[in-house]
């Protein structure tokens, strides 16, 4: 039945020119406002060629020459639509990158969703034109591309604008789109290479030399992430669970005897620069965690009470990454 109202919304939803519905809020669909398209250098050469053929057709009155010109010109228009179509409607989803230490390469993962029943060929993706990676996404499937970004300085980094580019199929047009995500990269200070020994202290805060070996065993408690695997109470675990290893227990050693480290920014030698100090603290935090020590952390006005575990380490590293000289006391 023919309705009087043409359903524009329905037509719009059917044409790639207008926006596709995104699957999630994070996902971005490349639509007509995001895909830019201009003739490429090759395209301009092609135009010059067309003009030459056209002039020859006029000058020698070649009607078949007119036909050839028009076919080639239309092919360029069709190519423009193909190029646009190769990029438009692509769904992009970026995931937050894992924090890295300064100087390391961060990995940004970009999920590419092609919901159309035609493959998308030869799409270049990268932060700059020079570091493009080529990707093909088969029909109605997803692709993943990992972009590398070398961090130089600690702190928060805005994920750089990602450029998607294609000139498929004929190379006469460049179509591109930018993806600016709200994802941030956290860069920790680079850990100092060959940092000195950890600054062991007594519970009262006085520094002391390291004491070898663990102190007296005082009992067990539930395993916390970050507890040293060396301290797992294997015998108690076996006894308690009756062979079903679903509870992890850690040994607890009696108080005063446990080795303890305080990572204090202000206690470091004044000859070191701020960044060097941060690097050293970073290296120490990593080493203390690795050795399963309990360590406290003091950076300016921020104090983290002695603890250990992945979470504690992360908090320390975040403090180090975001430390700013202005807030220094």
């Amino acid at each position, binding site marked *: 039945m023919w309705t009087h109202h043409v359903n524009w919304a329905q037509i719009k939803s059917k044409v790639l020119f207008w926006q596709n519905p995104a699957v999630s809020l994070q996902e971005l669909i490349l639509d007509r406002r995001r895909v830019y398209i201009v003739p490429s250098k*090759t395209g301009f*050469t092609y135009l010059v*060629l067309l003009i*030459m053929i056209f002039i020859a057709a*006029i000058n020698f009155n*070649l009607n078949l020459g007119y036909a*050839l010109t028009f076919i080639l010109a239309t*092919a360029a228009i*069709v190519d423009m639509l193909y190029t646009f179509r190769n990029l438009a409607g692509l769904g992009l989803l970026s995931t937050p990158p894992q924090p890295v230490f300064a100087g390391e390469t961060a990995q940004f993962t970009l999920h590419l969703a092609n919901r*159309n029943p035609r493959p998308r060929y030869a799409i270049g993706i990268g932060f700059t034109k020079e570091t493009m990676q080529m990707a093909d996404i088969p029909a109605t499937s997803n692709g993943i591309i990992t972009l590398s970004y070398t961090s130089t300085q600690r702190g928060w980094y805005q994920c750089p604008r990602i450029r998607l580019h294609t000139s498929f199929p004929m190379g006469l047009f460049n179509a591109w789109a930018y993806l600016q995500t709200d994802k941030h990269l956290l860069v920790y200070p680079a850990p100092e290479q060959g940092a000195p020994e950890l600054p062991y202290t007594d519970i009262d805060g006085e520094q002391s030399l390291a004491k070898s070996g663990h102190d007296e065993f005082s009992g067990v408690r539930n395993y916390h992430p970050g507890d040293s695997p060396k301290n797992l109470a294997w015998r108690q675990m076996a006894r308690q669970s009756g062979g079903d290893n679903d509870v992890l227990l850690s040994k607890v050693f009696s108080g005063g005897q446990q080795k303890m480290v305080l990572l204090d920014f202000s206690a470091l030698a004044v000859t070191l620069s701020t960044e060097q100090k941060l690097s050293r603290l970073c290296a120490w935090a990593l080493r203390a965690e690795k050795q399963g020590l309990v360590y406290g952390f003091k950076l300016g006005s921020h104090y983290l009470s002695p603890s250990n575990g992945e979470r504690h380490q992360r908090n320390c590293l975040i403090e180090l990454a975001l430390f700013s000289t202005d807030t220094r006391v």
Partner: protein
Amino acid sequence: MKTLFTPAFWYQWRLSQDKVNTLHLIFSCLLALIPFIQQSPWWVSLAAGLLLFWRSEITIAGHQLPSKWLLISITCLITTGILWSAQNWMGRETGVSILVILTCVKLLEMQARRDAMAVIFVSYFLLAGQLFYSQSLLTGLYLGLCLACLFSVQQSFHYHQLTPPFLQRLRDGASLLGVTIPLALLLFLLFPRIQGPLWGKPQPHPYGMTGLSDYMQPGNISELFFSDQIAFRVKFSGATPLPQDSYWRAIVLDRFDGQRWIASPSQNNIRLNMDTRPASIAIPDIFQHIIMEPNNQHWLFALDLPISITNPDQLTLHLTQRREIYSYRQLQERLQYDVVSRSSALISQQLTALERKNTLQLPPNANPLTMQWVNNLRKTRTDPTELAQYVLNYFRVEPFSYSLSPPPLGNQQVDDFMFTTRSGFCEHYASAFVVIMRALGIPARVVTGYQGGELNPVDGLTTIRQSDAHAWTEIWLENRGWLRIDPTAAIAPNRVQHEVTQHYAAGGFSRLINLNEHAWLRKQAFYIRANWDALNSAWNLWGLNYNWEKQKAFISMFGVHDPQLAQLPVILALSASIVTGLLALILLWKQTKSTPLDKLYGQFCKRMRTYGHPRHPEEGPSDYSHRLQQECSISPHFIAFLQLYSRCKYGKEYNSNNYNALKQLLKKCHQHKTAR
């Protein structure tokens, strides 16, 4: 281009993507170069072929490309050779030859995609160059083939890793060509035609043209007998002449120097449409629409004798005193005109003193034997008609023969022919007859043109080919005016009375098979050829001769009255935008492939919406059925449908039985609702 593997690896395995692309490019390039074989010197074609072969060998075997210096020296060598052998350094042939060689050399220094693009673009240009030599229907089809190949290869060079198979890529090229056709056709039909040339003088038509020349000497018409080329086509409206009466007049030659016949300098032109006598009912006027192929000459064709002609726009035409239609400009484009002819018996004619002098002129002291023979003849008879009859009869009775390869004639052409060789074709007979008539004191002249023609039953056009070229004579009789006499008809009446199918049967295949023995085959061959000719004729008429006149006719078909040239861009812009918009809509349409199962579910949801129980967008089929059960007392068919659909879609129960069951349930739901 370095190969990563040894050649043996690639012989054992399939060729890599790069190599397939390169070979594809070489092949497409070859296709674009083939038409130039005829135009370039043979050794240039050979060199191009060798270079292409070399490039293919390098690709397949995975050798290194030759060094730049080697290529430069090869190019210099061949280019020098071309310039050395060329008569004209700026000529088109020289340019084409150099372009051909440069294309092949460029293939040999192809390093990156950019170079491949350069080769492809040059190939597009070569396609245009090929049109200088031919624009026939076959050329058009060949152009399409080349374009599809080149599109495909241009696309192939832009793939990264995911690449469709080779055949699919060829298909893509062809489909791209197909997609361009609607818009390209529209542009072709509506784009304003600019009358060339933009610079320089009109160049002589590039096609190798054969046709009548402005002089006659034994041999130059018989050359045409072997040419299949079309001279012109005619559409008759009203009366159609019999084949034996179809004398297409072109040039009148009245001056003989003993060797060749030429036309005396142009006389006064007569007014067009000058005739005063009314047309006779017994012998009606013949209206012809003639489509004439370019022949680089000045004369147009018409049946004996033309009385009026429509002036085509681009030419100034004159009807000469000798009843020729003369154009001051050479005929370099296909030409169409309407002409009316009337039997010479109905036209009053005068012979001026100058004309009489011209048409009695003979070379002095030439052909003494003939002159003696004529003097003897003059003693027996005096009546011009009787004399003419006697000479024609003499040709018939004496052992004269019709031959396309007569023995050569000496200096005394007519003497040799009359008394020694006695063998020749229309030129010999016409020449001898006119000389004898003049010697007898009867004004006479030679007329060249065409005789006959065959009707193509497919499009109703009569085709006159170069092989129909003919020469005949006219003599002046005091009380009757100019009278056409065809002395060749006295010798070989068959030459004049064609059978319509004779020509078709004689060409092409008949050289391989004797078609006369196979009536059925002959008939088929006739129809195929007739159809092909009709197609070609339509191509020439509508494709190659498409101009502003035709554009006007085309636009008028859409109800625009008297379109103006200034309106054309507007019409073009509007219609091209519409077509481009449609093209974009089709190409950017989101194809969604829904399975039959999804279609059923879609129908179901649509119906439920009309029944007032729409599915919420976030609901799956099972949630939906739960809600329906809770909300309202609904027929179990609906629930059953949803449950079965859910099992089919997400379980493993999808088969034809269940599909049919779903269909049945949907029908039941519908009946249930409408029954209420």
